[in-house]
């Protein structure tokens, strides 16, 4: 009799536990559905408010679909608010939620959409990084690299075998060129700032060439940046320049011209009949007072132009 009482009690307890669990699960499911419906109607803010407060409750902590929906909502909010920057909160939240959803597991359809969403978010970082390079301002390199870093991390999480070295190399080249453009702009800058910009340009081209030693544009642009810096130094000579300063400036310029020669020759080796490199070599040798070599490149240019 006593054993039977215990069994009934156990049975009732089990019923309570099971029904509580079912209710909890149903309740959880309903929050997800509600958020989904709100999302479908375009009210992403309300969708977020419906799901976010309960997401960390026990009922949802292991619910992959809930995290997936939350991630998707954050992604849409990121788009609609127009937020930007490597620390844009909605985008970061979207990634966190989607990554958690993928860890927890989802049905194949949700998983495919989650991958698409992550892919989009990843590319949005890349797009922003490139946008900042195109409208480059001095001092924005760290943010550009942070954006690119997030892009790279996401891409690697989606496809760990993907080779991102060419893209990183491209980014470095663009950064080099962006810095070089600043040097050529007429905005007033202190000599210390100009020196830092020049050094940064050379550093970025160096990084680009480490990633891709055969990058023609990086080789050519590096050579041009070095050469043009030498020319800028020469142009600063005026009637107040002493003989000593003239000699010193000339030494600095020749050093830059000599440094420019190697990447220009490397670019030329890749595309031997390209006129811009032939012209570059002709000009460099002329600046280095190497008339015979300069004349030889001039003759090659004339021959190519004559054959056209």
């Amino acid at each position, binding site marked *: 009799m006593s054993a039977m009482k215990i069994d009934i009690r156990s049975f009732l307890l089990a019923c309570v536990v099971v029904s509580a669990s079912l209710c909890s699960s149903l309740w959880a499911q309903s929050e997800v559905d509600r958020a989904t419906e709100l999302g479908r109607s375009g009210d992403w803010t309300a969708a977020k408010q419906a799901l976010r407060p309960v997401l960390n409750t026990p009922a949802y902590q292991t619910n992959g679909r809930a995290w997936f929906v939350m991630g998707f909502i954050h992604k849409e909010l990121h788009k609609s608010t127009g937020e930007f920057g490597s620390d844009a909160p909605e985008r970061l939240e979207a990634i966190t939620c989607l990554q958690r959803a993928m860890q927890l597991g989802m049905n194949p359809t949700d998983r495919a959409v989650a991958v698409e969403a992550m892919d989009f978010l990843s590319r949005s970082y890349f797009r922003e990084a490139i946008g900042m390079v195109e409208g480059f301002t001095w001092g924005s390199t760290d943010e550009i690299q942070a954006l690119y870093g997030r892009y790279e991390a996401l891409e690697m999480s989606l496809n760990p075998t993907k080779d991102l070295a060419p893209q990183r190399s491209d980014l470095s080249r663009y950064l080099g060129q962006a810095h070089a453009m600043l040097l050529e702009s007429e905005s007033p800058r202190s000599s210390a700032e100009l020196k830092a910009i020049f050094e940064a340009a050379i550093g970025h081209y160096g990084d680009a060439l480490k990633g891709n030693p055969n990058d023609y544009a990086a080789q*050519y642009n590096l050579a041009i940046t070095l050469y043009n810096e030498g020319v800028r130094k020469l142009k600063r000579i005026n009637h107040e320049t002493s*003989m000593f300063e003239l000699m010193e400036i000339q030494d600095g310029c020749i050093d830059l011209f000599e440094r420019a020669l190697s990447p220009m020759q490397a670019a030329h080796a890749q595309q031997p009949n390209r006129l811009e490199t032939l012209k570059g070599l002709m000009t460099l040798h002329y600046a280095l007072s190497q008339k015979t070599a300069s004349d030889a490149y001039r003759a090659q240019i004339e021959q190519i132009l004559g054959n056209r």
Partner: protein
Amino acid sequence: MNRLTSKQIQSMHAVSDELSARQASPSFSTRERKVMVRGKERFGSSTWKSSRVARGFIAALICCICGIDVPTLEAQSQFTQTSTLDESDTRSITKANFLFHFAASNEWPSEFMEGPFRLAIIGNPSLHAILSDKYAMKSIGLQSLEILGFEDVASLESAPFVHVIYCEESGAKLQRIADAISNAPVLLISDASDGLQNGALINFVSVNNRIRYEINSEEAAKRDLLIGNRILSWAVK
């Protein structure tokens, strides 16, 4: 891989922001070509999926027909261009400053230290332009500096007295110029391997890729030209 222009990309694709993000990718492989649906996504609904597939197929078809690869970052970027070479004449910039110092740091007989100080350039319009641009309004001592440019030696004959002549002739031609001014305190400057042998008083030479100069100070003294110590100290010979 063919690169697209921004306009081609714009006209080929819809304006979905997600698509734009894809266009920003620098190196899509063919396998990675995907087209995102513009507008609202449906959390995996069949409508959404079929629409996506259809749009993807159309976009892929357009790409194939046009014979173009998937748009890349470079296609939209100003960075497709290589940098621009500064075409300034570097040797002339350096020489111009040397010539200014030669004019300013040497001494002419007193009767030639009145009126304008004339510096003539024969046959190097680039050097003449740089000198005129940078130094024409300057003075040499109490004399105003005049920069004169001549196409050839013949046109110099009708010119008034010049204190400095720079020419790039060599050999017998240079010697003829030197002979024509042998009795006058004219500082003849050349840029020739045989410059000093053929009558130039200062000759530009190349030393370790740098522009330097050599001086025939004895000949200068014969013409009553006093070469300044600063000029002498930097001469290679």
